[in-house]
């Protein structure tokens, strides 16, 4: 789509803030339009990276499951992790990537809970890798407007 979606939303957000809000009499409605402008700003930032960050994260989680499997001594969990590690993103709609991401993150919670209970060096290594990935996941989602 041209003009580019992210640019359109950026310009529309600026227009709402600079031109529309000052023309509104009610402070409540000014606030509402201000929130809509902020949402446009977030959409403009998220639009271009939305698929990319999900594909990257899904791949990283599958890789993590594959690497972690030997440290998992619950056979059922190990089998499910290895099965998820073999999945692929074939449908690149955001909703499909998001569904895959949810399944992978739910399994990540199970893996994390499991290795926390074990004291082996392998379990600690997996736990460190999980924390590193969780930190990375917040970098992928970070917004320029975020307070933190």
């Amino acid at each position: 789509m041209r003009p580019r979606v992210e640019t359109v939303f950026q310009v529309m957000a600026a227009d709402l803030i600079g031109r529309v809000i000052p023309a509104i009499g009610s402070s409540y409605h000014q606030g509402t339009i201000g929130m809509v402008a902020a949402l446009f700003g977030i959409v403009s930032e998220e639009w271009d990276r939305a698929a990319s960050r999900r594909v990257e994260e899904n791949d990283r989680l599958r890789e993590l499951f594959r690497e972690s499997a030997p440290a998992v001594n619950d056979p059922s969990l190990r089998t499910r992790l290895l099965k998820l590690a073999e999945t692929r993103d074939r449908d690149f709609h955001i909703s499909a990537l998001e569904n895959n991401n949810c399944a992978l993150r739910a399994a990540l919670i199970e893996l994390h809970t499991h290795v926390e209970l074990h004291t082996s060096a392998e379990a600690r290594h997996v736990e460190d890798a999980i924390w590193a990935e969780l930190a990375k996941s917040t970098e992928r989602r970070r917004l320029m407007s975020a307070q933190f």
Partner: protein
Amino acid sequence: MASLEASLAEYIQLKMPAAAEIRVDQLEQISGGASRQTYRFRLSYRDRGQARERRLILRRDPSASLIDTDRKIEFAAYKAFFGTSVPVPEVLWLEDDARHLGSAFFIGVEMTGFQTSPARILMEPYAAHHQKIADQKWSILGAIAAADPAKLGLVGTMESVAPDQCWKRELDYWEGVLDSDELIPQPIMRAAIRWMRRNPPPPAQKVGVVHGDYRTGNFLFDEDGRIHGILDWEMAHLGDPLEDLGWSLNRVWCWAHDDRRGGLIPRDQAIAIWEKASGLKADPDALHWWELFATVKGQGIWVSSAHAWETGENKDPILVLSSWALMNSQDRAALELMGHLQ
């Protein structure tokens, strides 16, 4: 169907039977927290022949809100602290019967001419008074912590809790919110909750009144940096006073995009002001637990706001904005507290 102005006038006549020529006008919806519809209006009437006028606030329950709260508790908290060293607006009438205005509500006195916006507090002339505002902000929070709930008449209205159960009750509740409302898995919050259950805090030094949402954005301030009213008591409850301190220090309230808490002062300074005013100790390990809890509670609110928008009738943009804008920051705050933010 009668207008809201007419319905309000009719209701107020019931509460002020001696008043004559009651009239409500200049009704305007305003931003007033996320859990209730808030309106300001002018009340005019004659009292024993004298013309009178009051500026009032109506807080009415919406169909769905960001936070599930009990208006009776909010009303009781305002009533309890009115006239004390904790400045709050006066509240007048609480009404549970939906036949008057379509849903339950309460009415209070408007405090006019002040600001609440976190964006405004970063601008001049307010920015020049950050230390002064912060001194009052955390001193007032200390006064809330020091207050005796029994003397305030809040025991009975607010559910009691034993000192060693404060943490568990709150964590159980907010974990339950995540369980019921999360639309996507929350691995960081789940890890935080597991750690918190393995490492509970010591019993509360005292069971006090917890405001529940004490932060920049929920108090009225003026151009000279004076705080005139603490607002939004909808999540007030009895509990560990460190809960409020931890919430006030939450990274998502760092409005200036730096380390200053509430956009005002460094964390250590805020804690020192609170300790002096409350007479309580902010044990570092206990406070760490409550700061981490604040991230779970915050995420619970952002998750439930997304859930309310997606599944309910309330399509207020604040439900989406709070979720989109704050969830990742809340995760990062938890990671930082757990020592895993790279």
